[in-house]
């Protein structure tokens, strides 16, 4: 929270001036009923029309001052809120981009998204409201009560008595309300879940003739939502009538007590009228204060969540290496071990690749194939051992590390943007480079058949088939002619023919490129110079297809399952 508030400090002067204007405007408003009482009680009996007009004019001046002061202050507040939030949001986004994979795993992506959207929004609201109401409401409340005391302490006590009652009502009801609304939200969540479940499972539901059963299940959830919402509404609905009742009863009491005070000559009639005006002002102030509390607790929680991210230490800083070792291998894994939060993912992996060589990685889901890539790109640091590229430890590289790579991850990311933008991916690439990459990736034909390179993708590329998406991604990876090409399970949706053609093209056209190909199908990695067989995070085989068929039991088993019965061949 401190971190977030430190953003406000550069606007101290502006905020102070705004708050000053606000205070002036608010006081001007508070004075109005006093002047009115004075006019009725003291000016009117003198029958002095001029004085009366002058006091009327004074009231008008106060009203205008209140208007101008408040509007100007509000606008200044909005500007401070805008500037603070803009900077805060930019910094937060930049910070998120710089977080390490481990830090992101800890916070989780959905949480980062909500911090960036709803939390910054809450903070924006809070900063604005704090300035607009934060000073106004207390002045109205305290000032209003104080001024009434100067008029008549006894009547003021009557009025003052209603304030705690009002406060208790507000606090009590909103406290209960929060619990009720949380419960309501939970039941709404389960309703949404039901709709989503049945939407995805509609075929099964119909096939099993379960529509009536589902309708009945929904009815129950619906009942619960309705019951919760009714309860919350009925509870919260009590506030307004109750507050009105208290306020108006207080007013009746003021008049009643006032009658005795007038009779005793302690107050004048105008004062009673002034009191009725202060009643309204104070009621509104109490409502405002309760709103401030809600807003502030919401905004404060959000500020804390944002601050927590901004305060995360910088991870994965490049570590300078004394000397670059001479190495005939281009990529080398040297006894690498790695674990996610204590659960070992890779154990003692060693292999080396020369420039232009290719590596196939194969094994069941969860055997550590993708972790291998994450380590190579230094998304994580190894626990033990060392990974070098061109003789240099990956930990010693800065931003230039990723310039060596073209990568396609498993179910990788496509943007709602044009085909060209998706392949170019914010790099300075020529149209020729992009189109050539698409050609190599066997994507050129369908791109042109679709809407060409300017054609738009919908979010996550939903308007392209799985195989087409994978080819667009491969084109992206190829477009900058990288030294190292990493394809992580990125041709699984292609039929065998296209898959085979793609591999052929890559080998023919990119002889200099070192290729790392991760796959489930043996036919996809068979071509590679070396194949690494992973099982439970350990290397159980390393060699060519031929060698592995001779020496590696796991490899043979996978081969058998894919070729003698268990083959998953998507094309057919």
């Amino acid at each position, binding site marked *: 929270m401190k971190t977030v508030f430190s953003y406000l400090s550069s606007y101290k002067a502006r905020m102070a001036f705004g708050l000053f204007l606000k205070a002036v405007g608010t006081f001007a408003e508070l004075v109005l009923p006093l002047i009115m009482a004075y006019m009725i009680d003291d000016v009117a009996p003198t029958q002095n029309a001029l004085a009366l007009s002058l006091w009327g004019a004074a009231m008008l001046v106060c009203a205008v001052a209140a208007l101008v002061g408040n509007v100007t202050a509000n606008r200044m507040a*909005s500007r401070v809120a805008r500037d603070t939030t803009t900077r805060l949001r930019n910094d937060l986004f930049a910070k998120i981009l710089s977080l390490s994979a481990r830090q992101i795993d800890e916070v989780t992506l959905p949480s980062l998204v909500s911090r960036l959207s709803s939390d910054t929004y809450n903070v924006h609201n809070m900063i604005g409201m704090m300035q607009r109401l934060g000073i106004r409401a207390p002045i109205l409340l305290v000032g209003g009560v104080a001024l009434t005391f100067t008029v008549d302490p006894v009547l003021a006590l009557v009025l003052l008595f209603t304030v705690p009652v009002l406060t208790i009502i507000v606090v009590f009801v909103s406290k209960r309300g929060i619990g009720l609304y949380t419960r309501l939200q939970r039941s709404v969540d389960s309703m949404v879940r039901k709709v989503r479940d049945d939407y995805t*499972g509609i075929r099964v539901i119909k096939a099993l003739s379960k529509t009536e059963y589902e309708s009945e299940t929904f009815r129950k959830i*619906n009942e619960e939502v309705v019951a919760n919402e009714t309860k919350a509404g009925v509870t919260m609905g009590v506030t307004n009538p109750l507050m009105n009742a208290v306020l108006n009863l207080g007013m009746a009491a003021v008049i009643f007590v006032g*009658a005795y005070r007038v009779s005793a000559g302690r107050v004048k009639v105008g004062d009673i009228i002034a009191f009725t005006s202060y009643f309204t002002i104070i009621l509104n102030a109490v409502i405002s204060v309760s709103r401030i509390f809600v807003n502030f607790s919401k905004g404060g929680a959000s500020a804390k969540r944002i601050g927590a991210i901004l305060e995360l230490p910088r991870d994965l800083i490049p570590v300078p290496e004394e000397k670059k070792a001479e190495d005939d291998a281009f990529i080398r894994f040297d006894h690498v071990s790695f674990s996610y939060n204590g659960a070992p993912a890779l154990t003692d992996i060693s292999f080396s690749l020369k420039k232009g060589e290719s590596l196939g990685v194969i094994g069941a889901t969860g055997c550590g194939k993708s972790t291998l890539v994450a380590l190579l790109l230094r998304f994580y640091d190894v626990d033990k051992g060392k990974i070098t590229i061109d003789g240099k430890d990956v930990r010693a590289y800065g931003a230039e590390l990723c310039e060596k790579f073209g990568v396609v991850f498993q179910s990788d990311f496509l943007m709602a943007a044009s085909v060209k933008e998706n392949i170019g991916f914010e790099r300075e690439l020529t149209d020729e480079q992009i189109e050539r990459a698409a050609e190599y990736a066997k994507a050129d034909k369908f791109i042109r058949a679709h809407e060409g390179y300017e054609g738009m993708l919908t979010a996550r590329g939903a308007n392209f088939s799985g195989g087409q998406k994978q080819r667009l991604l491969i084109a992206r990876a190829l477009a900058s002619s990288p030294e190292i090409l990493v394809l992580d399970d990125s041709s699984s949706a292609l039929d065998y023919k296209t898959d085979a053609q793609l591999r052929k093209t890559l080998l023919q056209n990119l002889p200099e490129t070192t290729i790392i190909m991760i796959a489930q199908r043996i036919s996809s990695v068979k071509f590679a110079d070396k194949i690494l067989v992973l099982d439970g995070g350990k290397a159980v085989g390393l060699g060519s297809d031929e060698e592995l068929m001779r020496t590696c039991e796991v490899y043979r088993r996978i081969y058998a399952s894919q070729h003698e019965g268990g083959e998953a061949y998507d094309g057919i």
Partner: protein
Amino acid sequence: MTEFKKPRMSRASRKAVIARLARYYARYKFSVLAALILMIGSNLFALLGPYLTGKAIDAIDLQSGVDFAAVTRYCVWMAIFYVVSSIFSYVLSVLMIRLSQKIVRSMRQDVFDKILSLPVGALDRLQAGDLINRISYDIDTVNASLSNDILQAATGIITIVGTLVGMALTSLPLLGVFIVTVPISVFIAIKRSKAVRPLFRKRSQKLAELNGFSEEMLSGLKTIRAYGREKEILDKFRKKNEEAANAYYDADYLGSLIGPSVNFVNNLGTVLISTGGVFFYLFNLISIGDISAFLLYARKFSGPVNEYANILGEIQSALAAAERVFRLLDGESEKADDPDAVVLEETEGKLRFENVSFSYDGETPVIENLSFTANPGQVVAIVGPTGAGKTTLVNLMMRFYDVTDGKIELDGTDIRRYTRKSLRAAFTMVLQDTWLFEDTIFENIAYGKENATAEEVERAAEGAHIAEYIRSLPDGYKTAITDGGVNLSKGQKQLMTIARAMLSPAKMLILDEATSNVDTRTEILIRDAMNNLMRGRTSFVIAHRLTTVRNADLILVVKDGNIVERGKHEELLEKGGFYAEIYSAQFQ
């Protein structure tokens, strides 16, 4: 945001929507009537307050001294009226909440039942998010508006008229002075609806854009990092952020005028009434009590005028939301069964396609003149590239759609002669998207058969090779399947749905083999489980596995929506056509 893009509703459709909403309310005539009475009562009592205040103050301000009896009387009456008014208004709000919740409940149920009754194809074209929006957000909007806004609008009208009458009765000359503020109030109201509302709409649109952008980019964080594009993406973000912040500010800039202006009008009223009032008082045109009553009326008056613009806007968006809900409700449901359709009691499982043609849109044929026969216990494999129309065949068999031409016969009878429910009950299915819902493992498997016993469920799990795993869980069959709960692998989910299908006594099976992303051991389990499942059933398999295809009694090769080849594995290989081509491709 969708609302932003759409043109305004036409007058006719608005009328239709209102009429339809009114029908929902018409079911609760009595409640509506009671609400109406309560509302009028509550407001009238509240309006009597200022009058009594004035009277009481006049009773204090007597030359002859204070008339305590009168003051007490008026104060007691005031207290009573205000309390009664508050009680009325609370009862009213409870009544309205209950009423609107009843309507919400039936609207929601209507929408949900509609979702279940839509043809599968129509549902596919809708997005889950869209449906959820309509069933929760839209319906909520409609009702918040109906229960709140209409009440407020009506209250507002009563208050405006009532306070004007009250002011006129109190003092006509003072009303003449006060009336000056009315144009200002109206001006603010118009300003709010004309200038501020579009700015607020733009503000939420820009914010939605920004949030959409950040969500999208964060989902691609790994890729952005791998390509080292952080700076470029950050620049884009900055731009969007600035736009959003400025839109927010623009709305605030004008919006910040509203609050103080409303206060100003109130204050101006106070100024005019007290100055004017005291003048009139000097000329004995008015009493002090009248000034007081007038002030209170004036404060009440400006509230609803200011709210009016807001309420109108809300009602408009509620009508738009209602229209979206009704449009969904108006979607065509699955056609009703033939009136003389019979219930399919028992079947051998002999399915025949006879010259079947089909087209989704009535123009582009998806299937043309297809005939084949599947005998009881046979396996029909359907193969072809993704998107070639394999699921269309399934849709026709289960009557998610009806054939355009020709017929499908089950045991020699046209399947359209059977009720849909009984026909579908003759099938069991396992689909590629393993569908499990949030409940226990037991419930998920038992879903396949009505009143399945524990024994049956366990037997099915056994046959699907998942029993061992389930027993290894601490809660066994009672383990809940949730997002946060037990973490089932893809393969285990697949086995679970196979168990569910196995429970069904249906004679025919539709199987969509998954492109498996599972390890070798699970793969073998799944294959074996599927073989168990096919035993004794006429099976239609959207095939991805070699064994299935090799052993199939009939292979249908689908390409671009047409059956291009058919026959047994060896025959097709010999033919050297499309099948042979895709088959050999994998051994390149």
